[in-house]
């Protein structure tokens, strides 16, 4: 009998009175001391499964056994007592409180009626020394870097005595250097006798560090491999249920003249600190210019500055010779810049608007009005219907609320809408974030088609594989500066990794 630390049998979780089935008869067995990866598309049900384990959700049916004994995990407090701890993708840290306050939250030591902050600080120091993860107990969370914040998250669950640690997309927000450090921490934890489950959608990462892989698709566990027998193709096929293409055919195109020029651009972030420091580059017609870099390197601010949503402190930005620095978003759009924003829910569309109204959003004054006063509803209906047919977007009705579509379909609509605008440059920020593998192919195809019509394309992405797949030239940003620009043929993951960490080639 294998030494299982965790056995989840026939787990079932439904919401809304049975209408939504998030987990459908999933069985998961974790060996003590292993690193087990859970892979699956967005909405497949992996987060739900882990939340059941962590006590945030109660299962509709199924059993959980820890070290052979059946366990009833009534809440997060219970889960912690049973030795289960989760490091969330979006950290569960209160930004305005200190490290010590976050650590003791829920298990606060008291001295009479008061909070015993002295003891809290001591506790932090003890745990931090035991696992060799240095941290300042009085630091305020919002002042710490992402890598350090994650360390606090890990210490938090170790403090509560976690033996089974669950990591949800742990490297999504880390630079390569921090990723290597995290892998080391994970190895140390295994040596200390811990067991690790981690959710990841990065197939290479899964192959690199896991011992065992479980694939979840549409709420069911569909495959389980020992990592030594697994390949990227096998995993991806199991995730989607059909063979998947990893690289998209790039059309052969002669690259034309420079049409976009950015020179010595300086932009500040929301805290008033410099986020973009004297950035310069140019993009030619028919070229896909990739901007790589971990989130927080200044790319968001760069794109906001170019699209008129953020003030440019100094520097120039010209498109086809026209200086667009300091102009309004509307002016820039009319000048020929289309934009697929990185956060489609916040920036690209109104979730409550119907699909039909979403097509008009941003172009309503140009395309869907006869006299600038009335909305041309008929034209809107016709075009919306046409789009949905052409790009195979379901469900078909144009009156459905935009927010009700799947992530992939939402993004397809946004991308299609932007491409329909009269433009010479399109900036696509994190274009396939939260999009299923099936739709990723379609979106990449749409982007590459732009080359044929001589458009300039700027793709900003934290997904290295996406950048390598699409770009003709790659710029890497770190700490607000461009640390290097490479031709695709000269670019390797290693080189880009060095540049992302701020090093030089």
């Amino acid at each position, binding site marked *: 009998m294998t030494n299982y630390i965790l056995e989840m049998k026939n787990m079932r979780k439904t*919401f809304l009175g049975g209408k939504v089935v998030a987990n459908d008869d999933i069985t998961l067995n974790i060996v003590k001391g292993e690193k087990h990866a859970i892979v699956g598309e967005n909405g497949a049900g992996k987060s739900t499964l882990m939340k059941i384990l*962590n006590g*945030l959700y109660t299962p509709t049916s199924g059993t959980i056994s820890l070290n052979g004994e059946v366990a009833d995990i009534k*809440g*997060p*407090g219970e889960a*912690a007592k049973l030795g289960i701890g*989760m490091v*969330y993708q*979006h*950290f*569960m*840290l*209160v*930004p*305005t*409180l200190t490290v010590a*306050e*976050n650590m003791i*939250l*829920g*298990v*606060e030591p*008291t001295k009479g*009626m*008061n*909070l015993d902050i002295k003891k809290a600080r001591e506790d932090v120091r003890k745990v931090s020394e035991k696992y060799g993860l240095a941290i300042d107990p009085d630091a305020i969370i919002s002042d710490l870097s992402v890598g350090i914040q994650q360390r606090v998250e890990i210490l938090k669950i170790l403090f509560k005595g976690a033996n089974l640690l669950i990591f949800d997309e742990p490297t999504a927000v880390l630079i390569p250097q921090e990723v290597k450090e995290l892998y080391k921490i994970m190895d140390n934890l295994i040596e200390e006798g811990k067991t690790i489950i981690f959710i990841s959608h990065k197939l290479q990462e899964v192959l690199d560090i896991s011992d065992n892989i479980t694939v979840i698709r549409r709420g069911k566990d569909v495959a389980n491999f020992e990592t030594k027998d697994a390949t990227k193709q096998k995993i991806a096929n199991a995730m989607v249920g059909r063979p998947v293409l990893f690289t998209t055919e790039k059309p052969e195109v002669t690259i034309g003249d420079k049409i976009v020029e950015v020179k010595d651009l300086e932009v500040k972030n929301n805290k008033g600190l410099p986020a973009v420091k004297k950035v310069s580059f140019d993009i030619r017609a028919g070229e896909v210019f990739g901007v790589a870099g971990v989130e927080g390197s200044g790319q968001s601010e760069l794109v906001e500055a170019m699209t008129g949503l953020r003030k440019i402190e100094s520097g120039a930005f010209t498109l086809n010779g026209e200086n667009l620095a300091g102009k309004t978003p509307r002016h820039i759009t009319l000048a020929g810049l289309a934009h697929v924003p990185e956060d489609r829910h916040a920036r690209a569309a109104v979730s409550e608007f119907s699909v039909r109204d979403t097509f008009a959003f941003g172009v309503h004054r140009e395309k869907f009005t006869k006299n600038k006063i009335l909305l041309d509803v008929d034209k809107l209906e016709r075009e919306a219907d046409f789009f949905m047919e052409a790009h195979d977007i379901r469900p078909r009705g144009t009156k459905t609320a935009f927010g009700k579509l799947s992530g992939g379909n939402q993004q397809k609509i946004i991308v299609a809408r932007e491409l329909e605008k009269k433009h010479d440059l399109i900036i696509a920020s994190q274009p396939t974030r939260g999009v299923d593998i099936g739709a990723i192919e379609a979106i990449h195809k749409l982007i590459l088609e732009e080359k044929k019509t001589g458009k300039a394309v700027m793709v900003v992405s934290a997904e290295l594989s996406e950048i390598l797949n699409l770009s003709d030239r790659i710029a890497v940003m770190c700490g607000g500066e461009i640390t290097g620009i490479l031709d695709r043929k000269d670019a390797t993951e290693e080189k880009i990794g060095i540049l992302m960490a701020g090093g030089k080639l």
Partner: protein
Amino acid sequence: MSIFISLILATIRQAAPILITAIGGMFSELTGVVNIGLEGMMLMGAFSAAVVSYYTGNPYVGILGGMMAGGIMALLHAILSIKYKGNQVVSGVAINLFASGFTVFMLRVLFNQSGNTPTVPKTATFFGMSIIVFIIYIIAFASHWFIYKTVWGLRMRAVGEHPLAADTVGINVLKVRYFGVIMSGLLAGLGGAYLSIGALSQFTKEMSAGRGFIALAALVFGKWTPGGVLGASLLFGFADAGQTLIQQYVTGVPPQFIQMLPYILTLLALAGVVGKAVAPASSGKPYDKSDS
């Protein structure tokens, strides 16, 4: 010199109802629930305190009555906003409208009056100020200790800033919010009780006169901290006190313009705080763990 002293005392007096209501609002908002209904809770508190004082002949029982009335209104707001995840501003506005109507209706039913109750027993005074004023300032100072030095205070702040994080460490987010909202009602009710049986000895129609809203402004101006709220309330109290003084001494200016001063001051204060005042992050958003 004596004008100076009477001005200070008047400021402390006038600030009291705004202060305690604002502290109440702070309890609610720190946990993430917006409470626009403070005005209504204050009004119900004023009315109930007067009525209970009338029927029991004891103003101190009246104080409790006032606080309870505010608490009950707050419970209603809590159920609508927390349990049923309704729109918190609409709920608050509904409570204000209800309180206006209810107090006027009961005035007629109980006393057959349309403007005010008959005189009721009021509380004892020291230095010309009702004992309630002293209670109010003690509570205000104690709230600083409560928010920053106790377990409850820490949990309240955590729930307000990141309710999901608090949930994942086993804190009952809903319970903490109920606590915050009900406290806001109890304290606003106390503020109202001061108006009817502390400062005067009767309830008059609409006697809260917008103080519940000025308290909200004091909360924003004071950046949701007890110290800030104290300062802001004293400022508004000063405007109120100063206004009566100015009317006595300044002739030639129509009194209505002077009466406008506290409200104009509030507007200017709000305009000036811009960008620097950040409400608790989850303010106004109902908590739903499946939103993560």
